[in-house]
């Protein structure tokens, strides 16, 4: 049986996302030019929540999109066939500040694929990266701009992010395989 430790509970997740929203506001003075893009699948609900939090701060809706990066991955040959999710980007990203949102930052390969995928939609003014958990073990020179929690992990450990939107509770667990 894998050992399971709670890293963030529901309250902590809410606090962390609220802080990230304020950090996004602090970093970006022009509220009009921000778009939030969640990376499928783990990032999309976090992106929606951040969008709502930012709306609460700025007082106007913030565009939120979804990006599937499977077609841009560099490790397609090493895994099974990925389950491709919809990409929904009903706005122009040219000249905008894109905040990419993902649940867990690990090797950085998903983020690299996301940067490539975004290229096909236009040329943002800048791209920032927000993640709920940074678990280390980067294989590429990629660094997040906003981090919910840094969790140094071993490679035999994994991070399990559960969110209300997918039917569970809000919680982040660290699992160690025996």
């Amino acid at each position, binding site marked *: 049986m894998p050992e399971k430790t709670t890293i963030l509970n529901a309250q902590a997740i809410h606090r962390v996302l609220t802080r990230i929203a304020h950090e996004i506001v602090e970093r970006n003075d022009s509220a009009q030019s921000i778009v939030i893009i969640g990376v499928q699948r783990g990032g999309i609900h976090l992106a929606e929540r951040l969008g709502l939090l930012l709306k609460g701060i700025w007082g106007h809706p913030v565009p939120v999109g979804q990006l599937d990066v499977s077609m*841009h991955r560099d490790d*397609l040959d090493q895994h*099974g066939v990925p*389950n*491709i*999710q919809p990409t929904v980007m009903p706005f122009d990203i040219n000249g905008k500040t894109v905040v990419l949102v993902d649940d867990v930052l690990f*090797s950085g390969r998903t983020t690299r694929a996301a940067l490539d995928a975004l290229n096909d939609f236009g040329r943002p003014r800048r791209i920032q990266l927000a993640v709920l958990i940074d678990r280390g073990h980067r294989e590429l020179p990629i660094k997040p701009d906003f981090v919910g929690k840094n969790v140094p992990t071993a490679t035999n450990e994994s991070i399990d992010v559960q969110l209300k939107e997918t039917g569970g509770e809000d919680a982040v667990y660290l699992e160690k395989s025996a």
Partner: protein
Amino acid sequence: MTNITTAGWHRKHLLDIESLTAEEINIVHDTTRAFKAVGERAIKKVPALRGKTVINLFIEPSTRTRISFELAAMRLTADVINFSVEASSLKKGETLKDTARNLEALNADIIIIRHSAAGAPHFLSRFLRGSVVNAGDGAHEHPTQALLDTYTIREKKGRVAGLNVTILGDILYSRVARSNIHALLKLGANVTLCGPSTLVPKVFEQMGCKVTYNVDEAIAEADVINLLRIQHERQRKTMFPSIGEYTNLFGLTKARFAKTQPDVLIMHPGPINRGVEINSEVADCERSVVLEQVTNGLAVRMAVLFLVNGGKGPQEIAG
């Protein structure tokens, strides 16, 4: 995150619909939806098959299917070579096996084959290391056509299960009909076949279809009417008396179209013989999705190339 969820697709080849499960057909459909969106962007290309070599081995003449596969491969950033019978060494007496082995010696990753002999793709899949995709083998199967037809139905009607689908025309010589029958039945549609009795043998009832020779009965309750072209090239002259008589008895004329359901979907795999199996105005009416089938065909073929490239075969996915 490196934990990418896999789709549950393990096939290295796409040889027929008969051996697919409903779940696998749905995986192709779901993947198709994502690739269709790629075709609607300003940049219609993704690097999913970068560095892969795709060979279109068309031993039987074809333009639209070959172009569709070619463009699909290009949009996935694969390198694609077209190999047609006119230019091939098959004309000089080389066997299909030798031709395929020669192409494999060029390190082809995916071979798309159309052949006039049923089973040719299955034959190649037994000794080639790469993936084999059937683009039509004789009167046997044309899997990507059935996948795009069922995808189009699902897109337009929201479902396939429970719908009344009528396939009208030359069933006997049609690989499109066979693949469609398999796909529709697996997805839970009610399939009715109709056409001249010489081209729609009763034996199809054993597959689970309804067979009728009364066209008015066949189309009255249909949610979808899929018209098939009369296959002049695969047919002996004696199957029905004349084209004119076929149109009178089985063509989708304006009078017959007027008696169909108001939301019926008119489909045709092309090329259309206007004025023969379908009235020209009916072919262009708003219920006709003929051109959307072409658009969806490209997306389906992108999905299929993407899936078979990732499929390792059951023996290789352990661990």
